[in-house]
């Protein structure tokens, strides 16, 4: 979009679990400053794609981040490189406090004063989390847990944030709030790769979108284009 070298480039990605083939050779790019969304139904391979990028599942094909081949990098180092993922189901550590949850995001960082400044920034975006620092993560409401998950990803100083269905299990009002926050985060300079079933919301904030169907990319375009596309309308937006 704005520059010729993509931040994240996926080439012919294939993921399979034993005999089950989840992703069948997809290629796409994410450029700096974009919100890119992958939409698709259950089992289309969206989550597998994100897991491959974070190094959680074995794959064939190549995933390149700023000229670094991610195949040789283990998952915790991928986070250190600047790719943070908000996993499906949020992955909150329920028996740890909100504060401990946040501290885990800076596990590898040693720059204490910078971390303090990041905390202030996070608490500016999510004042609710500041109030609930001492509370156990598992006792937060669904929306608060999602905020905590996004806050953790922000704390790892990510350049790219991968989100796996952040709208899952949230009320429409909370979904809107989360998506507004995502737009803000994006405007502050974080590139976002968003995987969603809620195609309507996702395409509205996305600069570009891809439609994933049973392991293949079938459609691509800007968010607005896809929103207007009759096939997308029929399959994902309810006619």
């Amino acid at each position: 979009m704005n520059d010729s070298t993509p931040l994240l480039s996926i080439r012919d990605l294939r993921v399979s679990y034993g005999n089950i083939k989840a992703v069948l050779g997809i290629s796409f790019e994410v450029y700096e400053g974009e919100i890119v969304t992958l939409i698709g139904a259950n089992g289309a391979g969206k989550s597998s794609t994100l897991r491959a990028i974070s190094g959680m599942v074995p794959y064939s094909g190549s995933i390149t981040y700023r000229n670094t081949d991610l195949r040789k990098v283990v998952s915790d180092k991928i986070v250190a490189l600047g790719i943070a993922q908000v996993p499906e189901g949020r992955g909150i550590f329920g028996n740890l406090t909100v504060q401990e949850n946040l501290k885990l995001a800076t596990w590898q960082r040693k720059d204490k004063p910078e971390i303090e400044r990041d905390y202030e920034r996070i608490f500016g975006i999510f004042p609710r989390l500041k109030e609930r620092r001492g509370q156990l993560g598992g006792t937060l409401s669904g929306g608060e847990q999602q905020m905590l998950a996004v806050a953790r990803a922000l704390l790892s100083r990510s350049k790219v944030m991968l989100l796996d269905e952040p709208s899952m299990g949230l009320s429409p009002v909370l979904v809107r709030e989360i998506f507004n926050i995502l737009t803000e985060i994006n405007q502050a300079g974080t590139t976002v790769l968003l995987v969603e079933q809620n195609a309507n919301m996702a395409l509205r904030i996305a600069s570009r979108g891809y439609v994933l169907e049973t392991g293949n990319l079938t459609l691509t375009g800007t968010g607005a284009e896809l929103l207007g596309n009759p096939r997308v309308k029929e399959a994902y937006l309810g006619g």
Partner: protein
Amino acid sequence: MDAQKTPQKNIQQPGKGQKLGVWKQYWDRFASNRWLLPVLTVAGFILSILIPQFNLVNPYIQLILMYIGINIILTTSLNLINGYMGEFSVGHAGFMAVGAYTSAVLTTIFIPTSLNPWLFPLVVLAAGVAAGLVGLLVAIPSFKTRGDYLAIVTLAFNMIVKSIIENIEAIGGPRGIPGIEKLTTLPWAFFWTALAVWVIRNFVYSNFGRGVMSIREDEIASDLMSVNTRQAKLLAFVISSFFAGIAGALFAHVLQFISPKVFDILKSTDILIMVYLGGIGSITGSILGATIFTILLEVLRPLGVWRMVLMPLVLVLLMLFRPRGIMGLREFRWFIPHYQLLATHLWRKKKEAANAPAAD
């Protein structure tokens, strides 16, 4: 500053009766004095020197006190893996055996008897290091598996250690090593126990410890949070087996006789019981669990075989009414770092303030 909150707390529960309120007030005042922990530790150490010196209590009770210390070390160290990391290791007696044999071989064969009392701390340390190294060797392949599989790997390890020892004639084979000098004294038992608790408590509340706990909660999320889960697991396992080795060395020099049979799977089960009795993921729980279990076994000794019926019964009842053990995932406030206590305290206060008008 903590003392200021005590009257407030009592106002909150006026219905509980005057007498209980007074006791609670005393207890709160006692518990909020954080400097009492170091004071009690020093007092305990001095007492542990004075007791054998002047025979303040009979030797039988002194012996039991030492066993309590050893069991606290074993329980706290196993709790690091089974409680804080959420894995299921059942071969703790194997590491204990490595420590016990290393130290016993050193004191009976290599070190001249006259030097034994002086070199004993180093011998215990060497036993810990040996067990820690074996722990590392076991951990590297073991942590490619999880859950039930790890339990089987550690179970196999326990059996392997036992049969290796049985087949080495130089260290007595199945007959074991008799005539070990009684080098574990009450002060030493106290010192190593305090050290183990202190090190493990500090580890748990460190950055690494948080990583270890996040593995228990959700390993995938913890990987995605940049936690090097492999490194955290290895370190926790090595620390755990290190202290099991130290407990083994102390144990060998109290019992004065060790054989492979002492360190079989039943011993591992005993340690597991103490962990789950006290409560997973809790230092306070480990101390309580080890103490209660050891004392209970001694108190029930007159019952003979029946104590082996009563003890499991106690466990069944415990699991029914307190499935997480006495202190499961909770901690007495002396062991919680101050910054964290403060955050929780502030949150509680806010919640109480928010609830107060509704309660009226």
